[in-house]
C-alpha cells in the first residue's frame, strides 16, 4: 500500500505492507535508526515518536496508519546541527549512558514540557514513566528536565558527596 508521510518536516512516499509497523518503517525504510526497538510490545518506550503531535509507541502503530500523518523523531530534535535545549541538558547532566533509550526519552520529555512547562518532580516521573532506562536510574534525566524547565536549584541538583 502506498503511504505518504511527513517525517521531521520532510515528505516521504513509500510502498509498505499492511503489517509493517511505523517503527520498522522509520528504521528500515527511511534509515532513521535513532528510534529503537526495546520490546516490540508497547511496554518500554524506546520506540517513542510523535504521531500527529502525540507521543506514541511506534512499535504499536502500523505504517499504513501514518498515511497522511506528521511524524517527528529524535533525528528532528536538533536544528541545523545545534542541539535542542533538552538535548543539551541531557548532555550536561549525564542523562545518557548506553544511549539506547535516549531517543524515545527525549521525545517524552518534549511532550511533557509542551503540556507542562514547569513540571514538578512527581510530574516528571509520571511523564517519563513509559520510558524504561536500565542504565541511569532516571535521576540525572530528571535533573536535566528540571534544568531545561528552569527549575534546577542547589536543593534538587543532586551531586556526588565526599565523605
Amino acid at each position, binding site marked *: 500500500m502506498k503511504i505518504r508521510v511527513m517525517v521531521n518536516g520532510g515528505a516521504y512516499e513509500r510502498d509498505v505492507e499492511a503489517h509493517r509497523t511505523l517503527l520498522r518503517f522509520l528504521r528500515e525504510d527511511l534509515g532513521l*535508526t535513532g528510534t529503537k526497538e526495546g520490546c516490540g510490545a508497547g511496554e518500554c518506550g524506546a520506540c517513542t515518536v510523535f504521531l500527529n503531535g502525540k507521543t506514541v509507541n511506534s512499535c504499536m502503530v502500523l505504517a499504513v496508519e501514518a498515511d497522511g500523518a506528521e511524524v517527528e523523531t529524535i533525528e528532528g530534535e536538533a536544528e541545523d546541527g545545534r542541539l535542542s535545549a533538552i538535548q543539551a541538558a541531557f548532555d550536561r547532566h549525564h542523562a545518557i549512558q548506553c544511549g539506547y533509550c535516549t531517543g524515545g526519552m527525549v521525545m517524552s520529555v518534549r511532550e511533557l514540557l509542551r503540556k507542562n512547562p514547569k513540571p514538578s518532580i512527581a510530574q516528571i516521573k509520571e511523564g517519563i514513566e*513509559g520510558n524504561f532506562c536500565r542504565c*541511569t*536510574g532516571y535521576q540525572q534525566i530528571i535533573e536535566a528536565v528540571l534544568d531545561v524547565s528552569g527549575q534546577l536549584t542547589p536543593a534538587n541538583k543532586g551531586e556526588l558527596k565526599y565523605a
Partner: protein
Amino acid sequence: MLENTDPSGLAVVGRPERRVDGVEKVTGDAIYTSDMSLPGMLYAQVKKSPHARARILRVDASKAESLPGVRAVLVGSELDYRLGLYVVDKDILAKKEVRHYGEAVAAVAADSLEIAREAVELIAVDYEPLPPVLNHMDALKPGAPLVHPDLGSYDYVPVFSPQAGTNIPNLSKLRKGDVDKGFAESEWIVEREYTNPSVQHVPMETHVAIVEWKSGDAITIWTSAQSPFTVRALFCYTFKLPLNNVRVVVPHVGGGFGGKAGIHLEPLAACLSRKAGGRPVKLQASREEEFSLLPCRSALTYKIKTGVRSDGRILAQELTLYWDAGAYADYAVNVTRASGYSAAGPYDIPNVKLDAYTIYTNKPYGTAYRGFGHVEFFWGLERHLELVAGVIGMDPLEFRKLNLLKPGSITITGETIAEHTGDPTKCLDAAAKAINYGRLTQEEAEREKRTGRKIGKGIATLHKAPAMPSFTATAAIVKMNSDGSVIVNVGLTEIGQGSATAIAQIAAERLRFPLSKIKVAIEKDTDKEPYDWQTVASKGIILSGNATVLACEDLLKEAYEVAAQVLRAQPIDLDHDAEKVFVRHRPDRSVSFAQLSVGYAFPDGNAIGGPLIGVGRYVAQGLSNLDKETGQGLPALDWTYGAHGVIAEVDLETGEYQVIKVASVFDVGKVINPEIVRGQAIGGMIQGLGTAICEGYIYDDQGRLLNPSFTDNKIPTAKDLPEEIESIAVETAQLDGPYGARGVGEHPMISVAPALGNAIMQASGAELLHMPIRFEDVWRAMRNREPIDNWITKTPTGSCRSDPATRIHSPNRAAAP
C-alpha cells in the same frame, strides 16, 4: 602507579566533564549493531524448544528449506562444535536433547524477517518430553536425572572442579582456621537459609550479531558485546581457527550488565552465513528470546551458620552456596568460584568453612551479571547478620562495625588488609549517618502519625574484588595526530558505563592536554585495538587506566627524545604544556607537539623522529591462584567496599511498602568523574532495587518460563525511584590505581536488597528470606503465613523456597536467668 600520577592539583581528573559520546547518543546518530544493515544481508530466526527437557527424535526442515527466500536452514545434527567458557558443555543448536525451555533447536536465514519467521514455523520437531529437574536442591539428590550425563568427558579450565556423574559442574571450597573449634567457643549458633531467583539483565538493546563467513574462513563479526577479544578467542576455539581469521567489531552497545560479557549468538549467525554462501546474517533476539533463549543470572540458595560470642565477635562461619545455574555452565562456575572467596563479606572471621556448588537444572542458564554472584549472596549474608545481631541483642550497626575488616585483618583467603585497601567502616558509618540510622527524625515521626504507616531503617555493607584471572592484562595505544591532538585506543569497551570518558580524562591529565585534544575510539575492532581481556569485573579503570597512563608516558618520552635533538637539550631539562615541549630554564626555546607529531623536519629539510605513538601495558600483579582445597591465595586486584542505608515505609495492614530514601557509599579511591560515578551509583542502585522489589523468573512445574516479557517481568520505571537518593564517595587511594582510582561499576547494585529487607523488618517485623520482596510476601511474613513458592508454581516434588526454619541454639551459654 600512584607515585607516578600526582593526585594534587588535578586539572581534568575529578571533574564532571561531559561524556565523550554524549552528543552522538542524544541526537540518535550513534549506531548500534541492531541498527546496522549490510549489502546482501539475511535475517535469522530461531526455532526454540517448548520443553524444559526432551529428547529430539526428529527434525524435519524440508518445508522450510523449500520456502522461497530461505537461504540457509540449520539443525543441530549438522554442527559438530562445542562451546563453553570454562566447561565446554554446549552445542550451538541442540542435538539429541534439549535442556531448557527456549533452547535453540534449529535456525533459518532468509531474505526477510517475515520469511525467516514463516520458515521457522514450518520446521517440524518431534520431541519425547522427559521429566525435567527444576529444583536445584532436587538436582543434588541421588537418582536425580542428569542434565549432563557426560559431564566427566567435557573439557574444562583446570581451575574448576566438575564432579562427574552428578549435576555439579563445579565445586569451590574454602577452609580457614577451624570452624568446629570456632563453634565450640561460640555462645550462640544461628542458622538460616536464604534464596534468590533468576533475573535478567534487561539491556535495552537485546543481543544481536551480524556475521559474515567468507572464503578462506575469513570471518567478520559485528556484535553488541562487552568483550570483543573473548568473542574472537572463544569463536576460534570452537571452530578451530587461527585468531587472525576472525575480526570482531563492536559499535555502540545498548547495555550489557554482564549478559553480553561472553559469546552468545555469534556462532549460530556465523554458521548460517557459512551455509548461505558467505552472505552476512543478522540474528537479533526478540525481548521474549532475551528472557529465555539468552541466559539470565543463576538463582541461589545460601545456607549460613554463624557462631558468635556474646560480645558480638563472629568466631565461625559455615557457608554453603547452592547455585542454580540452569542448563549450561557458562559463567556460572566462575560465579561460584568468586562467591567462594568473597561470600563471607568484608568481615574479619577467624574460622570459615565454605562450600559453593554450581548445579545444573533444566532451566535457562545463568551467565555473568553485574556483581557476579555478590548481589545474590549479600542478600543472605546481610539479612543473616541482622538476625544474629538480634539474637545477641546488639545494635546491627555496632555489630557490623565490630566485625568489619580493618587494617591488619586477614580475609578468608589469607590476604592481609592494609589501610590503603579501602575503608569499609567509613562507608558504613557514612551510610548510617545519611539515613539517621537508629532513630526517627521529627519529620519522620510526624509522617508516621499522619499516614499510619511505619518507617524502618536498614543498613548493609558490601565488597567486591574483580573476579578475573590472576594474569589479566590490557594495553593502551596513544597516537598523536598531526595537529597535536591524540587518539587513544583501548580494548576496554564502552557499554554505557562511561569508560571512554574516564580514559579520556586520565589521558588528558597525564598528558596535561585539555580534554578537547583527546579522542578515545569508541568502536572496538580486534584488528585495531590492543588486547583487553573483557569489559567486566569493574577492573577497567585500574587496568586500562594504568595502561593509558603508561602509554601517555611512553608518548611523552618519545616526544622529549625528538624535542631534545631539535632544541639541543637534555631530555631531563625539558618540560611541556598543552601545545609544546620547551626547555625548562629557557622556555622561549620550544617546539610544538604538532611539529613533532608525525616526524620533525628541520628548516633545511632533514627529518628525524616519526609518528609519535605511545604504548602502555598493564598486567595484574602479585595475584595468585586459589588452593583447590582451602581456597587460600590472593585473588583480588583490589577491593571496593561500600554500604547502603535504606529508609522504607510499610503499610502494616497490607504489606505494601515504598522506599523513602537510599544512601549509597563506595570507597572508589579517587573519583575520576563525579557525574559518571553518580550515574553508576544510582543506576546500579535502581537495578538492585529492581531485583529487590519486582524481578524474578517464575516457572511452571514443567519448566516453562511463565514471565518471558515485560508484562510480568517488571523492571523499575522513573516512578519507582526512592523519594530521596544520596550518593557518597570515600577516597582511600588505591596505591596501584591511576590517580588512586579503583572500580565501582558493579558495586552499587550489591546489598541494596538486604538493606531494604532489614528496613522492612525493622518497620514491620516481617522476616524476609527470599527475593523479590513483593507486597504479598511482606503481608505473609507479618502474619506468619506460609510463603508462596517464588520460583516454581505447582511443583509436585517440593517447593523451591528456602527452609524457613531458623535454628538458634546456644551450646555454651549458661541457662538464662
